[in-house]
């Protein structure tokens, strides 16, 4: 240090001290904003993902004609407009799916993207609030399929059919959205209300290592009289769960969803696999019968071999326990496959087999059904100040190649929804080996949920009674009777004619095997 800057005894002068202190303070305040690797620490997975994706997508998006059409149109709209901004409303955790191409969009169009995040469970309420207030605060909305009908009837969503015709987002064809599921997640009354950005399908996950173990194979064959392999029917699955359940070793035969708000999926999926419609053509409930009762009784019985007999596991408890290697099987969304393959969360990497959910043999036909009640599509708000510009963003974000980068985010919320995703090398890297083809097959067995007006009411009425039956608070027979009565009330309240029309539409999208036996 130059002593002439300081006092006689080399002491720091006040000005020098203040400058140094300010610099140190500024550095201390800025340090939390720097990535961990700036301190010499290893980059975290999120940063690596984002940097890798950014490098690849810079070249790749230009080869995507769907994306380029949207981009060119957006640039035309944005020309001459200062401070053009889009507000994208997203569930928390999904924004990372958009990060790879946000900068590209902003750079190309000269506009700004603002993301508004809300916790997943509050998205529906926020959407309905927007329907009531009509504030126009959001341009792009994350429409869940369960709420699609309600949001359309509440006049929140813009019919983007004409815009889709103008700019062609390639919803069909080899790069199109997965058929069947596209109809009941994006369309209502024949009109297009959004473009899928995430498709969730309930898949079956099994411990591959345990299935391949010769000792297990021998013991199982001896006990049950048939080979141990991927279960095709529910009876085989339940046999395997009982076989592998080992409470003394702290190993669960399986993990089942028994907590309030999660009970309905498993039962509905198994019920559907018996080839029975949950409503008849006049929207009369069709579940209080021998089949409904048998399914519920089987589900009640098998829970003694699941979750170490606990019925209060949330979905993330099931994910954690399965990935920790504490159970043989679990149903889950594609995220469970990714979670069980991630180095920082899983002890069963490479040991998990994904399979199409098992089904039931009905009149000689194997009917496999997979619940497809979650997921999202991107919609344009009816109150957006820039609806065409917002639509262009949606088309860009869901374009075949651009969206591949979105769904490949290991830490994001979104999963494959275009046919091209299943063979895209960027996407393949994010999923465990062999999972994508199975996911694609599973989507062919997709069964729509309560995509009716008041869908959440139907779902909750079913869930509450199933939950009560699983807890022993209600007898299965009474639970089914109560559900039927509640569903009837809801149908009357929502308007039977409208519900019949929508139900008729949804029946078209059931799997082929189901329709063959259901008639």
């Amino acid at each position: 240090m130059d002593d002439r800057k300081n006092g006689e005894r080399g002491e720091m002068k006040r000005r020098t001290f203040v400058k140094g202190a300010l610099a140190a303070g500024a550095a201390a305040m800025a340090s939390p904003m720097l990535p961990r690797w700036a301190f010499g620490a290893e980059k975290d997975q999120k940063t690596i993902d984002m940097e890798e994706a950014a490098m690849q997508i810079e070249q790749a998006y230009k080869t995507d004609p769907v994306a380029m059409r949207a981009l060119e149109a957006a640039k035309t709209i944005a020309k001459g407009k200062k401070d053009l901004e889009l507000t994208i409303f997203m569930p928390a955790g999904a924004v990372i799916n958009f990060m790879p191409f946000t900068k590209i969009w902003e750079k190309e169009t000269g506009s700004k993207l603002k993301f508004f995040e809300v916790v997943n469970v509050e998205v529906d309420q926020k959407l309905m609030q927007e329907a009531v207030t009509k504030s126009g605060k959001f341009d792009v909305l994350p429409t869940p399929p369960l709420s699609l009908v309600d949001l359309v009837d509440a006049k929140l969503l813009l019919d983007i059919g004409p815009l889709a015709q103008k700019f062609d987002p390639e919803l069909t064809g080899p790069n199109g959205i997965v058929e069947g599921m596209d109809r009941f997640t994006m369309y209502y009354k024949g009109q297009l209300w959004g473009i899928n950005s995430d498709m969730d399908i309930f898949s079956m996950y099994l411990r591959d290592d345990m299935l391949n173990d010769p000792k297990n194979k021998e013991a199982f064959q001896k006990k049950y009289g048939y080979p141990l392999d991927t279960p095709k029917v529910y009876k085989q699955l339940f046999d395997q769960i009982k076989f592998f359940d080992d409470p003394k070793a702290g190993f669960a035969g399986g993990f089942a969803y028994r907590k309030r708000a999660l009970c309905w999926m498993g039962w509905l999926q198994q019920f559907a696999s018996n080839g029975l419609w949950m409503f008849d053509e006049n929207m009369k409930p069709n579940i209080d019968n021998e089949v409904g009762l048998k399914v519920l009784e089987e589900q009640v019985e098998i829970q003694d071999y699941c979750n170490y007999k606990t019925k209060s596991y949330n979905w993330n408890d099931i994910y954690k326990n399965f990935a920790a290697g504490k159970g043989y099987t679990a149903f889950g969304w594609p995220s469970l496959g990714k979670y069980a393959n991630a180095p920082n969360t899983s002890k069963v990497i490479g040991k998990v087999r994904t399979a199409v959910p098992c089904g039931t043999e009905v009149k000689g036909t194997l009917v496999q059904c997979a619940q497809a009640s979650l997921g999202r599509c991107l919609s344009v708000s009816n109150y957006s100040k820039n609806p065409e510009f917002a639509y262009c963003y949606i088309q860009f974000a869901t374009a075949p190649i651009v969206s591949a980068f979105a769904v490949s985010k290991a830490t994001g919320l979104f999963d494959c929804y275009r046919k091209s995703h299943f063979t895209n090398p960027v996407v393949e890297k994010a999923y465990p080996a062999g999972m994508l083809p199975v996911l694609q097959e599973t989507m062919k067995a997709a069964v729509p949920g309560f995509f009716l007006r008041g869908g959440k009411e139907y779902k909750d009425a079913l869930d509450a009674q199933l939950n009560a039956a699983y807890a022993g608070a209600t007898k299965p027979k009474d639970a089914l009777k109560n559900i039927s009565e509640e569903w009837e009330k809801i149908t009357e309240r929502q308007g039977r004619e409208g519900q019949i029309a929508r139900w008729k539409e949804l029946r078209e999208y059931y799997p082929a095997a189901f329709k063959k036996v259901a008639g």
Partner: protein
Amino acid sequence: MWKKLTSLPVLMVAPVQLLIWFMVIFPTIVLVWLAFCYWTPQTGKSWWHADWTWFHNFYELIFDDPRFIWSIVRTIIIFGVCMSVELVAGMIMALLFQTKFFGKKLLVSILIAPMMVIPLVIGQSFYMLFLAQGPINQVISWLTFSNFQFDWLSHPIWAMVPIMLGEIWNWTPLVFLIFMSGLTTVPENQIRAAQGLGATPTQIFFRISLPILKPLILLVVVIRGMEIFKIFDLVFVLTRGGPGNSTETITMYMYNVGIEYMRVSYIAASAFIVLALVVIGAVRILKPLQYQLLED
């Protein structure tokens, strides 16, 4: 009159008063309107174009919705149990803290700490405590020399226990603080006189302190009762109203029906029914105080 209204003090508080009236009165008017209409956002109409249905919502709630009635019954049960325990525990703690001892101030600070914890955090903590493989069952296993793995949160009756315990743990300190202050207002000379006449501490408490504290106790019951009626966070995190609807309190019911199902006007009507019940209850409880004030 006009001079009074345009006087400086009135003009200075007028903007805030008007704002408060707008924030309270306007929503109340909208709520009353909705309670007598049929309206959900799914109708696609604005709420002021809702169809007038007179008392249909009220009728359906009272005579055709057992879920609503049972949610009120459950809330009253929670109120009864939690209030009783909080009053007794708070009073016992307050009595114990009447004498001076080493570390009293520190102990008071520790005891009132639960009040500072957000109910959501309490819910999450009690969720972990009451899991089948959680610490509560572990302690019971040690005490009973058995493998106790009871699934508290999935039992239709016992699922209430974690909810009530969470509520009691969170708010007993407040009751304790109020009673601790209240006990300092009991006249010393009356106690000394009673002691001089040979009264036992129990007699002094029941015959002198408790009657003097009666108004305070009633006030605590009303204030805490209104808060207990609003219990939501604990129920949401612990059980979501399950199993089935067996722990669904009135606020959980209103959340499910009003926010999840968006039956806005129906819930507006239920809000008025609940308000009426709470007001009637509060007036009944505070009636003795009215007489006391009149006597004074």
